[in-house]
């Protein structure tokens, strides 16, 4: 039942325990914490005292029940509700379904009805819920740092008109409602200007399209139809606007059921291996500036022109193979967002040349408003000219992320009136006169368009925790509305006097059929333009001096706006497994040339800016190039974000914000001689010849389908056989379509109340993730092959951890689960020693007690919050299994296939993780276990894991070595 919550009460800012609205036991997560002290005293004092339930009883007198005064009809204490809403990132909406326990959102899932989600999510969506409960969120409006009344502020804004020199600086927007409001603002303030700014800039996409087709367009890719995909520095599986959807499409074309199935071939040229690159069949390390040449070269080959580009033999071979394949099969070329317009233009030309347009690519009008409108530079220009009287900044954080050359902080100081609105304080907001707290999306009404243009609804899960306004309300105020109310505005726009339709709309979360049809525009390109495009790039100065910097939004904290979310900070990044910070990623050759290794701090200079970062060496990285992650080194944000990593924004040149070539900015990298240990969750990336994650290429697989035969099947044992009648739960994971995006890691953390241990905790190997992704790479001459292996409790039938536990804290359930009972655990840690997969985690300290009150509201009440000194691990989301069981028992039926979905499976964009009962023939999970390429990790130990893996099959071009 997903419908609009009625009568949700405001959560207090303070300790929820004091909140009369929440009976104990629903507002507090179940936990041993509060009683631990008692237990300790008793047991320590009275020696052998405390038989199990003792502590609870010690507490009984203090526990109170406070029922609601009036029970909202749809709300039953203890029964969670789900609501459809959307999260917007730089203008693009992803549909979500959010679970709420007693009116507090606890978990984010994807909305199956939403084209950009199809039920899946990425790590940012999963973690976004934590921002809602951020204890450091501002409590109200400020004027020059002094609290002031939000209503009064909005009213005064609404009354002043017209404002001369009124400028807005917003993230890209796609909200239809927003578009109307902007018009209304313009109507009321004729001189008002709107500038769009995001540190992760997508203008070049639209410029590229305009150059070829005469107007900005949004390419709509069909990865599920393409036989050959060439990615020009495009991480379309993890780092692009529509990645969640594209991952599913891509996976559908790669998922082999039989050796005979056809799969697409993926060419990737990029400076640093990305999740997409780690799945590539032909990966080519190339510096960002080289990409254009590669594109031009491919185009030249396709058009049969003499190739006059100066390419290294290796690049030569790669482009030749790519061009040949593109011509042969149904091809698709994707250019990365950070590449300049030319590359996008070239990509369009290639797609046109191979007839991809209309088959694997179509175009729509951009979902975002005014895609090529004024940006930060225009604003800066105007400020310098003194034309800006009032500057309204919403969310955007230019003081932190603008290139050093711009010196935006100084410019900002020159604006007389500055208003900033954001969910949490950031570098820019602290320098503005007025601060208006922005409502978190889980507390706001609104609408937005998905990447394909589908209109998606945003509805609140909870009344705003603190005094705050939404962007539409803010704009409405400038448009003259004194008491703006987004809900009302939405009703006016969508209800059409039909409450039922409105109800259904909210339940579905999307306006069906609101996506524009894709079309193929005619190419409008003058011969001169074309010539300029295909012309070879002027050879740039080579030599060790000329090193190039490639900037990439962090996979964890994006452009820095999520730096306050501890889950993301502690999420190991897909390729390097670095948490809590960023590094200068170098190729082995470059590192050697510089005489540095992992953890050596280097000083990076570009123009006037200097940054010091520890080095991390990544095989498969392009030489004479360093990849730097954006989004770290915040200095005036929330405590979690501040001082983590180093801020590399100042190094970005104005012209090409995505990369800096030595020629442009005189980039230098020199060792400092100091070391600073990165917090990594994985230190060894090779398999040391152990057959842990087998891989094969398509030919070998077809020749010998059961090449993993030696890695499955039971081995002889004296012990009795274990599979009996009751449902038997199991999981299969297809390493072939796992890009390592880590959405599952965060999803697991959110579902199971997994604590965060901080950088030092990680350095001391004490991270708590129940689900980690082991990444192994094999260095095959000039190419590096990656394989991601999500590693979680394998729920072995002959579990080594069980028979060493002296107190039955971990033992086996009749339905095949390896159960972990926290409140029985005494912490001998023998189970961890004896777990060959090392998936067990131990609470070395009290990680959950210091959790601030608001954050506790996120806890999943169906999962015990673990105390200090107990072991914990993946439970196959047993809470979900058992509640499904209870549902079935009540209805006196069996559990249906697909009824139980684990958190990791639900989040996984590619559907690599499948879970279910072995009895349910025909389900994806069971089918996979029958495939020839399945295997059990560490099979020869005969632990009989219930988690089966499918070997990674790659599809390399035979003509490429």
């Amino acid at each position, binding site marked *: 039942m997903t419908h609009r919550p009625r009568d949700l009460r405001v959560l207090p800012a303070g300790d929820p325990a004091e909140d009369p609205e929440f009976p104990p036991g629903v507002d507090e997560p179940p936990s041993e914490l509060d009683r631990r002290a008692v237990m300790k005293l008793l047991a320590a004092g009275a020696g052998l005292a405390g038989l199990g339930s003792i502590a609870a009883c010690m507490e009984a007198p203090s526990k109170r029940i406070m029922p609601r005064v009036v029970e909202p009809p749809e709300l039953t204490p203890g029964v969670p509700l789900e609501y459809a809403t959307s999260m917007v990132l730089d203008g693009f909406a992803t549909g979500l379904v959010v679970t709420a326990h007693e009116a507090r959102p606890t978990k984010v899932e994807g909305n199956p009805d939403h084209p950009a989600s199809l039920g899946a999510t990425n790590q940012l969506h999963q973690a976004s819920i934590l921002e809602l409960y951020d204890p450091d969120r501002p409590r109200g409006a400020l004027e020059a740092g002094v609290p002031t009344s939000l209503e009064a502020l909005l009213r005064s804004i609404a009354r002043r008109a017209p404002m001369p020199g009124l400028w807005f600086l917003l993230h890209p927007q796609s909200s239809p409602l927003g578009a109307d409001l902007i018009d209304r603002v313009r109507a009321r303030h004729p001189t008002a200007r709107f500038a769009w700014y995001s540190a992760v800039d997508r203008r070049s996409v639209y410029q590229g399209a305009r150059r070829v087709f005469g107007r900005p367009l949004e390419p709509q890719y069909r990865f599920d139809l393409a036989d050959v995909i060439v990615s020009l520095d495009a991480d379309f599986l993890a780092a692009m606007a529509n990645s969640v959807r594209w991952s599913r499409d891509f996976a559908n074309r790669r998922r082999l059921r039989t050796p005979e199935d056809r799969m697409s071939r993926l060419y990737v040229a990029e400076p640093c291996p990305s999740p997409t690159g780690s799945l590539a069949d032909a990966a080519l390390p190339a510096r960002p500036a080289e990409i254009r040449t590669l594109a031009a070269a491919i185009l030249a080959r396709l058009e049969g022109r003499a190739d006059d580009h100066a390419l290294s033999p290796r690049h030569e071979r790669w482009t030749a193979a790519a061009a040949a394949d593109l011509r042969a099969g149904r091809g698709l070329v994707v250019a990365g967002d950070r590449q300049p317009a030319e590359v996008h233009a070239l990509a369009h030309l290639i797609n046109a040349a191979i007839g991809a347009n209309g088959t694997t690519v179509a175009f729509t009008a951009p979902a975002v408003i005014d895609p090529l409108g004024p940006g930060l530079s225009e604003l800066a220009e105007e400020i310098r000219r003194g034309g800006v009287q009032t500057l309204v900044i919403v969310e955007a954080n230019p003081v932190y992320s603008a290139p050093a050359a711009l010196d935006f902080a100084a410019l900002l100081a020159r604006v007389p009136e500055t208003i900033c609105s954001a969910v949490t304080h950031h570098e820019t907001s602290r320098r503005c006169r007025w601060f208006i707290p922005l409502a978190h999306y889980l507390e706001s009404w609104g609408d937005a368009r998905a990447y394909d243009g589908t209109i998606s609804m945003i509805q609140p899960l909870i009344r705003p925790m603190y005094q705050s306004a939404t962007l539409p309300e803010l704009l409405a105020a400038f448009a003259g509305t004194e008491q703006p109310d987004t809900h009302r505005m939405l009703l006016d726009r969508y209800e059409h006097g039909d409450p039922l339709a409105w109800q259904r709309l909210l339940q579905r979360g999307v306006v069906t059929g609101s996506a524009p049809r894709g079309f193929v525009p005619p190419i409008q390109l003058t011969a001169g333009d074309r010539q300029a495009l295909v012309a070879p790039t002027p050879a740039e100065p080579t030599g060790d001096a000329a090193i190039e910097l490639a900037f990439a939004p962090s996979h964890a904290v994006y452009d820095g706006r999520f730096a306050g979310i501890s889950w993301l900070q502690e999420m190991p990044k897909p390729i390097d497994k670095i948490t809590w910070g960023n590094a200068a990623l170098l190729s082995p050759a470059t590192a050697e040339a510089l005489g540095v290794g992992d953890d050596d701090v280097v000083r990076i200079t570009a123009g006037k800016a200097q940054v010091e970062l520890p080095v991390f060496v990544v095989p498969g990285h392009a030489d004479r190039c360093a990849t730097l992650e954006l989004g770290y080194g915040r200095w005036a944000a929330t405590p979690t974000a501040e001082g983590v990593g180093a801020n590399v924004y100042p190094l970005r040149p104005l012209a090409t914000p995505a990369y800096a070539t030595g020629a442009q900015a005189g980039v230098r990298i020199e060792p400092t001689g100091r070391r600073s240990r990165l917090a990594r969750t994985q*230190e*060894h990336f090779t398999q040391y010849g152990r057959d842990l994650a087998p891989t094969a290429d398509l030919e070998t697989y077809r020749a010998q389908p059961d090449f993993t035969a030696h890695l499955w099947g039971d081995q002889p044992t004296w012990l009795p056989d274990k599979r009996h009648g009751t449902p038997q739960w199991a999981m299969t994971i297809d390493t072939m379509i796992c890009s390592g995006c880590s959405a599952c890691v965060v999803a697991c953390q959110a579902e199971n109340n997994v604590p965060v241990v901080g950088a030092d905790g990680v350095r001391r190997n*004490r991270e708590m993730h129940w689900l980690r992704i082991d990444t192994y790479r094999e260095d095959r001459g000039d190419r590096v092959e990656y394989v991601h292996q999500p590693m979680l409790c394998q729920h072995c039938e002959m579990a080594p951890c069980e028979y060493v536990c002296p107190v039955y804290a971990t033992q086996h359930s009749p339905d095949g689960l390896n159960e972990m009972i926290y409140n029985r655990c*005494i912490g001998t840690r023998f189970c961890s020693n004896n777990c060959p997969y090392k998936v067990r985690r*131990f609470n070395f300290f009290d990680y959950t007690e210091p959790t601030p009150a608001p954050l506790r509201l996120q806890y999943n009440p169906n999962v015990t919050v673990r105390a200090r000194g107990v072991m914990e691990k993946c439970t196959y989301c047993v809470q979900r299994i058992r509640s499904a069981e209870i549902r079935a028992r009540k209805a006196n039926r069996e559990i249906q296939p697909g009824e139980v979905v684990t958190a990791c499976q639900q989040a996984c964009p590619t559907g690599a993780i499948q879970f279910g009962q072995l009895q349910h023939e025909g389900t994806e999970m069971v089918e996979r276990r029958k495939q020839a390429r399945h295997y059990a990790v560490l099979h020869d130990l005969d632990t009989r894991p219930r988690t089966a893996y499918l070997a990674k099959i790659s599809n390399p071009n035979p003509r490429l070595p």
Partner: protein
Amino acid sequence: MSSRLLIGRPSDAELGEQLLGTTWRPGGRGWRIAFLITGGLTVLLISLITYTIGTGIGVWGTMIPVAWAFAIINFVWWIGIGHAGTFISAILYLFEQGWRTSINRLAEAMTLFAVLQAAIFPVLHLGRPWFAYWLFPYPSQMEVWPQVKSALPWDAAAVSTYFTVSLLFWYLGLIPDLASLRDHAPTRRRRFIYGLFAFGWNGKATTWRHYRAGYLLLAGLATPLVLSVHSVVSSDFAIALVPGWHSTIFPPYFVAGAIFSGFAMVLTLLIPVRAVFKLHNVITEKHLENCAKLTLVTGLIVAYGYILEWFLAWYSGETAEWYEVWVARPTGPGLVLFYLAMSCNVLVPQLFWWKRARTKVWLLWPLSLLINLGMWSERFMIIVQSLEREYLPSMWGDYLPTWVDLGILLGTLGFFTFLFLLFLRLVPIISLSEMRDMKHEIVHRERGHG
């Protein structure tokens, strides 16, 4: 040989005076200083234990994958040391080795105190020590019971049994001497107190009869214990899958190592005691030499254990196992301790082929210290180095101890010494009644010969 076990033929009275006298002859300033230092270390131990329980064992260096480290190393090491005592007093008693007489009480005391140190750790290293009693089968309202298929309850049973039996055996041997003290200690107060512990012993023949039977059988019962305890301890590792632990050689290999380190510790203690109390006539070079010889023998068994480990690791063909033993230990993190173990446990004992090394204390004593060090390193090698490099390279991790780890180890050393000093001051170091027995036998035999 007997002649070399007792130098001179003191009368019973003289013997009594010499052996009982240690309990009432005033100790000099040296004693006070020694008590001060060891007492201080004991306080350190207690405060660190409090700190650990209060904050969580995160204050140690343990982590995933190395979830067991110093605590378990110390446990195994101390238990091992504990072995020599019962070995001497029980097994040598059954084999009627005369030379055990003058050192068995000291050795047994050492055993008790060593096991006491060891017993701290199994509880302390728990995540929630206050629930340690769940390991015992008490009538619980929860109706869940200990899981006795795990090696840890075996441990609990073995160690507590071993301690209890050693204590009873030691005390039984002590009773006649306590009676002697009750009757001969200088002041009435001392006599009164010693009398409380003497159970009213009066040397009646019938009592002696039961006493002998009891003592003999207790010795008989202690004998299998000596061999079983460390076998059980070794099963903590042997039943596990961890490469480097998963080995059938462990029980004999551990027992040998235990007796090896035990005798080393006996020498470490015996030599100074002998010097301080001028016991050269009752603790002769013969005694030292015999200890050294046993050290050599057990040392050779340990060396054999090492060789077998390497061989099996190669022969098993199991990659992880091979890597563990042949690569990780000699070249991985903590390799220093690996080489320390090898040199101290394999090379050092070889010196005992050489008589001077067995008899000259200035050589024997430092060597015994080296062996103790070597055995500690061996436990580090087995426990920590194995865990550092397990099956999945993705989860390999390097271990580093914290100051708390080191402090606790130091603390146990202090506490051990403290207890041992108390023992030296409070009860006869050498069993008077047994010495008398032996003396009369010797005299008897000599008469028989002459």
